[in-house]
């Protein structure tokens, strides 16, 4: 297993992978073609599982030897028992959920930690684009037109942090990517991150102690 070269993965997935300890149990919700799961398996010996909506994604994952089910995060998370995983990952998917608030609560019921990555709708380029063009802004991360996009619940970094606060979720760590795709802390200023961060990665935990923790 260790003989395999580490697959190269997207920067935001690297940030997520950094947050995950070796040999842990991970559920990747909306795992796509399994890039993160494969990386975690080969590099960190993680016991990984995935849920993916698209059958192309699922076929690719299972064909690559990953444990992935075809399912819908909006409905299928309810099946899993409490604290079944060390980490539940939701990468670039929250904005496509029908009920993001409920999904967040479910993530932290199933996992001791949740790791959520999301595009920031308050990035300055998007703000300016809306101001000057008067059209729904698009960028690398939010590439589709408004009528085509699966992103039905876009939010900003500050929106997300506010939601976490209101439902008793602690943000343990946050990392941001600027529009060059490089990680930055923006001097640990949330307001600055909300302006300059194109994407954000949060590690979350429940404020209440999990029963087994």
């Amino acid at each position, binding site marked *: 297993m260790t003989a395999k070269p580490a697959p190269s993965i997207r920067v935001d997935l690297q940030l997520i992978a950094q947050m995950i300890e070796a040999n842990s149990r991970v559920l990747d919700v909306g795992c796509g073609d399994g890039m993160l799961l494969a990386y975690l398996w080969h590099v960190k010996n993680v016991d990984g599982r995935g849920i993916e909506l698209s059958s192309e994604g699922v076929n690719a994952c299972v064909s690559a030897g990953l444990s992935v*089910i075809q399912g819908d995060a909006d409905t299928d998370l309810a099946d*899993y028992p409490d604290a079944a995983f060390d980490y539940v990952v939701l990468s670039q998917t929250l904005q496509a959920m029908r009920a993001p608030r409920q999904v967040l609560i479910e993530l932290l019921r199933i996992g001791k930690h949740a790791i959520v990555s999301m595009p920031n709708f308050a990035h300055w380029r998007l703000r300016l684009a809306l101001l000057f063009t008067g059209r729904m802004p698009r960028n690398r991360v939010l590439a589709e037109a408004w009528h085509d996009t699966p992103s039905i619940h876009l939010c900003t970094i500050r929106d997300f942090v506010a939601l976490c606060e209101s439902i008793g979720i602690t943000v343990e760590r946050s990392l941001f990517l600027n529009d060059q795709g490089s990680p930055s802390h923006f001097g640990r200023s949330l307001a600055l991150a909300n302006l300059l961060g194109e994407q954000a990665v949060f590690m979350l935990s429940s404020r209440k102690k999990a029963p087994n923790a």
Partner: protein
Amino acid sequence: MRAHERLHSNLPVDRRNLPGHRVFFGRDTPLQLDCGAVLADFPVAYQTYGTLNKNRTNAILVCHALTGDQFVAERHPVTGKDGWWSLMVGPGKTIDTNRFFVICVNVLGGCMGSIGPAEVNPATGELWGLRFPIITIADMVRAQTMVLDHLGIEQLFAVIGGSMGGMQVLEWAALFPERVFAAVPIATASHHTAQNIAFHEVGRQAIMADPDWCDGEYWRVGKRPHRGLAVARMAAHITYLSESKLTKKFGRRLQTGKALSYGFNVDFQVESYLRHQGITFVERFDANSYLYITRAMDYFDMPARYGGQLANAFRDTKVRFCLISFTSDWLYPTPESRRIVHALNAVAANVSFAEIVSNAGHDAFLLDEPDFRRVLGGFLAGAAQHRGLAAANSR
């Protein structure tokens, strides 16, 4: 000529002289059946492909469906056609016999050499007929464990099966989890629905309505209920296909000429096809076997055995599961597989699940479906890596 010899001589191939292996079990420890009866001194027929490795860790048990048998990947000794999963099993194929030792056991109640109504009851010297006890899917699996013991295999690398084979896979994982590393139930369900039972009942009634069935004692009088069994097969065969597949394959195309006959001969190609399916089936299958095996499937209800909670069947399981369903399968449709996936998720089991897009209906698992092969092959490769099995060329 004694009655059972008449039956055997009625068939193209004497079942007692089929290729493969046939072992007698139950002489020391009889097999306790779910119905309460015990089987002592009974034959089980099986076939193997590939080579068992030194550590005996590369065995894959393939479980056959209702009308399948142990001849998975060779010329069938009765029909002369390719084995039912020749596309999938063989050297270099998805279930690679250069790498894995593949076993397939003729199920209890079957008619290809394993104990069933068409075999001789040693206590009476006659064929069992309807005196054969009712068997269940779990009984079939218990008999398969005897084959494994006989071969000295403690743990199977994988158990794989579609349809009724998938039911056996589920029973393996539930009853003998320590003997299974990976389980692949394909196009199957955790219980038989009212609709499933209803279709089977049509088949059974067709057989029993045939005067040549003779209350199940047809072998005494040298008859076989060909017509009833053929109708049962025709009705069942429709459930294995899909409306779109039938439309694509036959539509309303006529068998001969361009005009309707205004009679009841074969007008449509689909009629001819179904009749052919029925006729070829009766050449290789025993009518009473068909009654027993369909009954075993109808009795299959795993959730009921576990207090209505299928998840309880798999609590703390270490088995790696891969469930596969097909979009156009309306016999065991995707929601049935999903129900099993949900139960496995509820116990945080290691499970993969893929729904393959296909218009071939239930039979898709027997056909050339590239996505299906890729998913199954990938799952097996990943599981083999986790199991620490060497690749084919370095064994």
